[in-house]
């Protein structure tokens, strides 16, 4: 019998992609419902702070995942876009009186524009060379800001308090509004990723990541696709930066643009599952509380135990589950286990 005798009948029901998307939508609603009521039961400021940071890194890592995960261009300099976002909205606020709610949109666009300028030469490099270039450029901008007096130099800028409101995005003591703001940002990025996965851009980015030459032969413009991914990724990272600036009310190059921040932005996605919808959220939910708790309980000793634990965790995931923690639950169902090859049609479909 020939391998391809007849176009036999389709497997009944929804295809794999449709089933996956249903599961994802359902799990998204459940998680959102839990996160909406979660802080109401937790009064502790310290715990709420950890929740806020977790949501922030979920959002940032989802933004990183657009370029690094779906499109496969590993950036290790995303602190640049985060810092630019923080500086743009803060400078607009302190120097020109633009309310941060508007300023953050400008921050997103400036970050996207910078990403396009930076990526123009960088996308002529590929693989490790691209990653190295992003580190170097982020470091250069960090040094520029450190020595630039108009933006506060090494001393940074205090964000002046102008009364509690959503327009100025400032709240004196309450953590709750910030919690919901970051939850909103993470949810928007989740929805954006959910949409991307089923859009032309999502298909093109995954094709570029899997096999650029084949993608090109099907009409995909590699350079243009990567540029769009970089701009979208930087746009959301920039908005995340201005959110954070409002949250901590003080920015300086060391807290907004340092190299460790770049690592923290990409780690949740890598740990949770690179290029998957839930990877960044799962990675952040494990990584950020662990970082914060180990830092406050054993980090004070100065022995660096928290960092050792951190390193061990990353090594464990990298060796045991290289596709990320979502591989444990197979939430996405994107990667099928090789052990379960699709079998032929069941006997009944042979009737024709």
């Amino acid at each position, binding site marked *: 019998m*020939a391998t391809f005798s007849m176009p036999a009948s389709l497997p009944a029901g929804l295809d794999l992609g449709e089933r996956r998307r249903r599961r994802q939508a359902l799990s998204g609603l459940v998680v959102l419902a839990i996160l909406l009521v979660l802080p109401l039961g937790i009064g502790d400021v310290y715990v709420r702070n950890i929740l806020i940071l977790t949501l922030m890194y979920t959002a940032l890592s989802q933004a990183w995942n657009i370029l690094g995960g779906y499109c496969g261009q590993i950036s290790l300099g995303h602190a640049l876009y985060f810092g630019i976002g923080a500086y743009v909205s803060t400078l607009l606020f302190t120097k020109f009186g633009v309310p941060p709610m508007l300023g953050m949109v400008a921050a997103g666009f400036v970050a996207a524009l910078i990403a396009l300028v930076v990526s123009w030469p960088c996308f002529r490099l590929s693989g490790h060379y691209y990653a190295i270039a992003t580190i170097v450029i982020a470091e250069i901008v960090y040094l520029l800001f450190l020595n630039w007096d108009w933006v506060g130099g090494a001393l940074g800028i205090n964000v002046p308090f102008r009364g509690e409101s959503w327009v100025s995005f400032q709240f004196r003591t309450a953590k709750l509004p910030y919690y919901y703001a970051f939850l909103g940002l993470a949810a928007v990025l989740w929805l954006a990723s959910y949409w991307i996965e089923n859009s032309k851009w999502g298909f093109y980015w995954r094709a570029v990541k899997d096999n650029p030459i084949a*993608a090109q032969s099907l009409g995909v413009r590699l350079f243009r696709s990567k540029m769009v991914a970089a701009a979208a990724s930087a746009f959301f990272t920039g908005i995340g930066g201005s959110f954070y600036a409002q949250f901590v009310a003080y920015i300086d190059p060391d807290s907004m643009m340092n190299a460790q921040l770049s690592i923290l932005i990409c780690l949740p996605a890598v740990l949770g599952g690179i290029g998957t919808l839930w990877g960044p959220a799962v990675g952040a939910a494990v990584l950020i509380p662990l970082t914060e708790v180990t830092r406050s309980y054993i980090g004070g000793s100065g022995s660096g135990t928290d960092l050792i634990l951190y390193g061990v965790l990353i090594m464990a995931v990298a060796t045991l589950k290289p596709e990320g923690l979502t591989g444990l639950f197979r939430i996405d169902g994107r990667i099928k286990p090789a052990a379960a090859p699709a079998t032929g049609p069941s006997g009944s479909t042979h009737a024709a």
Partner: protein
Amino acid sequence: MLLEVDGVSQRFGGVLANQDISLTIVAGEILGLIGPNGAGKTTLFNAIAGAIKPTTGRILFEGRDITSLGASGCADLGIARTFQVVRNFETMTVLENIMVGAFNRTGSTAEAKRKALEVLDFTGMSLRRDTPAADLTPPEKRRLEVARALATGPKLLLLDEVMTGLTPTEAQAGVQLVRDIRASGVTILMVEHVMEVLMPLVDRCVVLNLGKVLVEGKPADIVRHPDVVTAYLGERYRASA
């Protein structure tokens, strides 16, 4: 005239892989491109697909100069290709692989999926719809490449050694698919090593040797042509042939 190759030469350093090659492809035909190893078949194939730019000469598609258009530009105009060494999107399912091709003609996911399912059915891969490309058997992988190329809605399909490594039964199924594709109105250029598979299938044949066109003609004439026999089997066998 669908495609016209006009005096194309390709130089890689000191090697002249193609030397002043001219040929034409007529709409609706299946043209075979054969030749021994190192004859310059794949180089010429890549130039037509836009993957490399010839050192000199021009290539016209429907009267339009496509010499320096690039691979993605050629795909937009209606030239689709497969690869000698299979290049699929390994982490994506069969359906998703084909959808990438279908997106060349539409921005709508629903429309791309409709087109992809049509191609999936046409190529007889429906049962593999949800299988990741990495898990396919080698002949299925080749078939997926053809399906993906067809989804871009090509006028000209370039097949690079798609029959290589197939069992006789699998090759027979492949031959049938190529006939079906031509019947659907797509012109085909096939590069092939396996002469027995190619000869009954093609309308016309171009033989390359050492970077130049050796002969061109009907399959029946080609196999008896003394220069072809020499090129393939060597001078020693010519006397006995």
